[in-house]
């Protein structure tokens, strides 16, 4: 794990001699958090692997122009979220699938992916989360699993704090209902 601060990494990245080294450190610093964030959206490990590589490729291309008026962590999260949601959207358009079928596909992945091995209750919760609309699912995951602050989520998702609170509230209610019905 890198001990360098984000500002130090950025300064190193802007120096052509240490650019690749700084980027490597940045990947090592944030890869796990970003991976799990993406994995919760796309479910499959292979898909998450594709998305995280694309995310870092975008980061490489945009880090030169990154303005330090926001945290690098929120910027990375924003790219990762967009990449993951775009990936699902592409999947839908590629196979001409309606939204429900993508959910079914993700549900099947949850049951058949070799890199999923939780207990029944964990799987039950994941299945309930998959029934939520995509954006609400992202909000729920960020708040419930990652315990992120609403202000940070607002910066990442470009949605107001009030709307996020309402979205999380509705998501919890829906999940509780799904679990009771199940």
């Amino acid at each position, binding site marked *: 794990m890198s001990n360098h601060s984000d500002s130090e990494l950025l300064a190193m990245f802007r120096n052509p001699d240490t650019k*690749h080294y700084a980027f*490597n450190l940045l990947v090592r610093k944030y890869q796990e958090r970003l991976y799990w964030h993406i*994995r919760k959206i796309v*479910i499959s*490990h292979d898909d998450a692997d594709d998305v995280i590589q694309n995310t*870092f490729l975008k980061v490489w291309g945009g880090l030169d122009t990154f303005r330090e008026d926001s945290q690098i962590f929120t910027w990375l999260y924003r790219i990762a979220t967009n990449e993951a949601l775009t990936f699902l959207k592409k999947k839908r358009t590629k196979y001409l699938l309606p939204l429900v079928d993508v959910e079914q596909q993700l549900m099947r992945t949850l049951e058949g992916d070799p890199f999923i091995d939780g207990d029944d209750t964990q799987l039950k919760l994941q299945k309930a989360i998959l029934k939520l609309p995509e954006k609400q699912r992202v909000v729920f995951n960020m708040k419930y699993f990652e315990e992120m602050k609403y202000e940070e989520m607002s910066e990442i998702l470009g949605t107001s704090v009030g709307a996020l609170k309402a979205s999380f509230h509705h998501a919890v209610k829906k999940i509780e209902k799904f679990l009771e019905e199940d």
Partner: protein
Amino acid sequence: MEMKTKKFDKKLPFRVPEGYFDELPMRVQERVAASQNKEVKNGWVTLRSQLAFAAGFAFMALLSYLGYYMARPLGHKPEKTDYVEIVSRTIYDFDDIDLYRAIEQKKRTDSIKQAMQNVPHRFYIRSSNCITIIDEKKEVNP
């Protein structure tokens, strides 16, 4: 907001292959290097196509130029704008008799001008049936 059902822990049911996070940075770097090579290659392809287009255009322009001059009739008469040709030809065609004629002509024109200057200028009022001279002015040369 806390979920009512407390039995759900926050552990995820997902796992990754052994050593995945150790290898990921290297694979990302490989992707970055591949994308840079692709960019350079794309840049060269673009430059090459632009150069090919420019060369084709220059060739067509050269062909048009040569075609135009090759298709010109042999007994071509120079245009009025071909000054160099006109001047050089005029110099060789010039004759002393032409010079004398030009001097004669000039003298005649000057004498007419002189005579016209001595004629008084008359100012008229033109009415329906007659013309009245109201003033007469003679120009005096300094």
